């Protein structure tokens, strides 16, 4: 696990093989002079799910908006799919961005039109764009929404449509900003499984910015913890979620499974296996109960 010591002297790193997004020493300052990102280094490799964890105002959304070149780096280096992003580079549409506010993202008169918007901008013909849109909606199990009007959709449905909108553009990477915030548990799980299936079934790399630690624990291959515009830790979910000081510094809670495990271990001997997901904890408890049974 790396920590904040590396950030005091930020250096550009070598681009690694299979690295889809490479960020070095990224700085971002708001027009009023407030620094929102400072010396941020970030990597995304093919086929992985990376979760950026941080409290509100930590700089997650600003970082996310850099990842497809929507916001250009003024200081630092950003390489996306082998292409260095400069002030003159356009938005890289192979990296699809799903915004937190789906109301602003889904703006066309019908769901089909909205999902077709991206492919049409990429130069698809109307028929090809329609096909791409229908395929994208089917892929995420939202084909029933095709002819619906966005105004009448629920938040969860809008979020699905927003994901379909970027999926129709055949992205290599999908970046989702707070994908499950303000959703009910059902739609939250639905979005989570859609993102997971995109990784497993279609080998699309995913970046998720969230402060939902349970989601991060369930879905992440690697985690970046961000606080006050700086990456304060990176590592596997197990590395991060059993590091109390990192979570405290970032004003984040432990995932439910970790919290329960720690409570269960109080006063008793801890297992070598440290569960991160609820599923892991259940397995562990089943083992313990199995041993205890006569």
């Amino acid at each position: 696990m790396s920590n904040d010591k590396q950030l005091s002297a930020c250096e550009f790193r070598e681009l690694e093989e299979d690295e889809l997004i490479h960020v070095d020493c990224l700085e971002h300052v708001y027009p009023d002079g407030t620094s929102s990102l400072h010396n941020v280094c970030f990597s995304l490799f093919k086929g992985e799910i990376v979760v950026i964890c941080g409290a509100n105002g930590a700089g997650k959304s600003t970082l996310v908006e850099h990842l497809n070149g929507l916001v250009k780096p003024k200081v630092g280096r950003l390489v996306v799919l082998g292409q260095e992003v400069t002030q003159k580079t356009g938005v890289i549409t192979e990296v699809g961005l799903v915004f937190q506010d789906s109301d602003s993202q889904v703006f066309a008169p019908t769901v089909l039109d909205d999902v077709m918007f991206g492919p049409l901008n990429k130069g698809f013909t109307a028929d090809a764009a329609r096909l791409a849109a229908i395929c994208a909606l089917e892929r995420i199990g939202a084909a029933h929404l095709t002819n619906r009007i966005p105004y009448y959709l629920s938040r969860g449905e809008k979020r699905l449509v927003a994901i379909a909108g970027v999926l129709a553009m055949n992205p290599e990477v999908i970046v989702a900003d707070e994908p499950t915030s303000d959703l009910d548990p059902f739609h939250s799980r639905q979005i989570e499984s859609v993102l997971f299936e995109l990784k497993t079934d279609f080998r699309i790399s995913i970046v998720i910015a969230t402060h939902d630690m349970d989601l991060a624990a369930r879905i992440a291959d690697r985690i970046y913890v961000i606080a006050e515009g700086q990456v304060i830790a990176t590592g596997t979910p197990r590395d991060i979620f059993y590091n109390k000081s990192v979570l405290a510094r970032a004003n984040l809670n432990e995932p439910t499974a970790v919290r329960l495990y720690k409570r269960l271990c109080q006063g008793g001997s801890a297992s070598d296996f440290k569960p991160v997901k609820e599923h892991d904890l259940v397995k562990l408890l089943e083992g313990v109960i199995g041993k205890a049974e006569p």
Partner: protein
Amino acid sequence: MSSDISSLEDFMRVALIIVACVNAYRGCLGGLMTNIGFEKHLPDLGLITHYSEFGKSPVHEISPWTKIILLPVVVFNITVIIDLRLLLMILFAVVCLYWASELPIVLLLYWWTLPVFFVASITFLLIWSVPGSDLVSYGPIHLTLEGVALFVTLIVKTLIGVTYSLVLLMTTKYNYLTHIISKILPYPLSQIALLTYRFLFLTLEGLKSMVIAMKSRGGLKLSGIRKHGKFYGSVFALAFIRSFDKADHVAKAMQSRGYQGKLASSYYVPRPSAGGYAFIFVAVLLSIFSYSFGRYF
């Protein structure tokens, strides 16, 4: 003395008319908006989109080009024709078109309220100075038959414009409009028009939720024209300011999906049929005829 009494009577009449008008405004508009809900008077965006995208009436089948070409014809008519009987006939024809489009007539009456309110609030001040045969007069204030006719004429013109615009918007798919506007307006005007049109929906949606939020906190229980005016003024101002923020988000979302300043449109928009051309021709002829001879009616 008797002339004084008759002047006083005239004054009372004028005062009563003004009070009646104000009460009518309060009762019909203020009261209606308060009791039924302001949001019903704003066009329902989802419904407009629903009808435009999924409507199956004969008017939906008419070529979008025909409906668009008829728009300037309608605008010409409401600009130049001053004969009230002709205007009422046009209004009747446009309402019939609305009805033939299988659009909700009851909602049309709600949606008429705001434009009527807007026009009435301006023309109400004008009608007192129109020369003609007096109905009521007091000193320099005269309410003439011509003044009343002007009031009604302007209202009817507004209703024609609003109703035809609704017919156009509710029977034409957005993508067809996009295509046609991008053909007839030069860049970047076409893009501005298209984005304004689309963004209007988002702004109105925000406005609607703001009104509902204020209503839930008792904002609409205020009484009196001034308080109502202040309330709606602040709501519109807030919606305007918020729309900047919203525009920023929408622009980012569009850019991230490859938008580079030009809305892509590759739709085929059906050309007018022979009947469509004939209809346009007849409408243009009738407009010229009405303009030329209408003034002698």
